[in-house]
């Protein structure tokens, strides 16, 4: 194209411009992806509304419209700000500030337009917003033999999610300890226990399930449960060997 030099110049400029634009968009996209990846982690004291999909799915579904926040009659739910906290614009609550009152009609779930809050949740006691954990055994008043009992009393699923387990008070030798024990299979994570804990810093805290719950491998079988299910010994004819006890010194 020697006879038309500016054609090739134009072409070069076009290709350069296109490449530059594409690379700019690529860099921008990458920066956004890094930001989005960073904001995927949920702070330990931030709880999602009832019925929220598991966190990764939730972030794909929540459009940050705030309709759940509007539906909440107790001002529990907030939208996260740009700065530190859950992913910007997503709804959350902090149990120690305002816990979930567990409305029976679950208005926040009904308000969600996208399904980020799952409408298959119709019984609020089936909600799993988090799970309560006694995080501080050395400050919990009940564990020191006192009768505080507040977390137990305020629990909306009392005697199922939190029970008081009686044991011997080894400090005094003659009293009882009433230990609050959380049962994750019944705890909704509403946060009333954490809110009501009388200590300056709550000894019982509601943590996101991913943080608080352990999980056994899927292939684990508990022998005693399998035995009950089967109604018989799983391995018949097991020999019960004699227990070996430590020998007494003469």
């Amino acid at each position, binding site marked *: 194209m020697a006879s038309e030099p500016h054609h090739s110049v134009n072409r070069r400029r076009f290709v350069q411009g296109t490449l530059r634009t594409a690379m700019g*968009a690529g860099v921008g*996209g990458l920066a956004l992806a890094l930001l989005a990846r960073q904001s995927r982690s949920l702070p330990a004291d931030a709880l999602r509304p009832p019925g929220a999909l598991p966190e990764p*799915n939730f972030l794909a579904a929540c459009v940050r419209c*705030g309709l759940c926040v509007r539906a909440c009659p107790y001002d529990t739910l907030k939208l996260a700000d740009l700065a530190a906290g859950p992913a*910007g614009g997503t709804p959350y609550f902090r149990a120690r500030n305002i816990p979930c009152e567990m409305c029976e009609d679950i208005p926040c779930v009904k308000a969600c337009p996208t399904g980020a809050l799952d409408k298959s949740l119709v019984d609020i006691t089936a909600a799993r917003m988090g799970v309560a954990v006694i995080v501080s055994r050395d400050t919990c008043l009940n564990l020191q033999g006192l009768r505080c009992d507040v977390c137990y009393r305020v629990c909306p699923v009392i005697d199922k999610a939190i029970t008081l387990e009686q044991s011997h008070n080894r400090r005094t030798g003659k009293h009882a300890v009433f230990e609050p024990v959380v049962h994750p299979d019944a705890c909704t994570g509403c946060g009333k226990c954490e809110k009501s804990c009388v200590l300056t810093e709550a000894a019982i805290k509601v943590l996101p399930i991913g943080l608080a719950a352990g999980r056994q491998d899927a292939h684990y079988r508990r022998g005693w449960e399998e035995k009950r299910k089967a109604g018989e010994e799983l391995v018949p004819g097991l020999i019960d060997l004699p227990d070996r006890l430590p020998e007494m010194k003469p």
Partner: protein
Amino acid sequence: MTARRIPGRAAWAQHGFWRAHRLLVLRRLTQLGVLALFLSGPLAGVWIAKGTLSASLTVDVIPLTDPFVVLQSLAARHWPEATALTGLGIVVAFYLVFGGRTFCAWACPINPVTDLAAWLRRRLGIEKGWVMRRETRWLAAFAILAASAATGTIAFELINPVTLVYRAALFGGLAGLAVVAAVFAFDLVVARDGWCGHLCPVGATYGLIGKATLLRVAARGRARCDDCLDCFAVCPEPHVIAPALRGREGAGPVIVSGDCTVCGRCIDVCPERVFSLTHRFDTRVDAPPASAPRPAGRPAPAALERA
């Protein structure tokens, strides 16, 4: 030194303030009105529209959903529930009739911000600056959808100034306004009409709808055009005007580009009243005035448009 021509002053002088600012004033009122529908709840307890511009519920029955938010959700592999999809259908249907990027010019809260930046640029005589390609917005939208897909999140809502303004106004939190300030600074200093015209993927999506929308601006009186170029100076997407105004290669008088935001500033500022609102199938063109040919000695319009 010749005084810089201030676009719109000629129309103002000939037709009065109202006729030279009618659509601009209506647009500001609409933008404030949309915000007021959302704000009346938190401020006065009168709940009309709840939510934000990403998804909302009006008078507890009409759902509305932003198209680009749905696209991101799909990219992140979440299929939204019926309410969100109904809202999407209503929005798409509305803008298929009422102009596509009319959202940008008449509802979006960022529009006054970038309009102010563009106005300041004209007044301060700031050079055009960095000229991005028109296709940048498609690549930006694609890159953002890719980021959503890669992270499995609705990624753009972290920084989307359009919804951040509403979130800040309705739910508190000022950090979001930093993004708005950044957009203003970008448009003022870095690139003319940089954000709305070249980067914003929300507007790009409405622009897609605008490719087929019914409501359009047309240069019906193009025969009266005296090449003052005020329309090009105020238009946030000046490339859309030329085909309809010049009628080259048999182009009709209707501005068909989806990029046109139907802001109507060209209608306001034209002293010759060339432009009007109409539907996209309107082919009427006013007859040229009997006398008054193009004044001799004026440069060819094409050269001016490029300037």
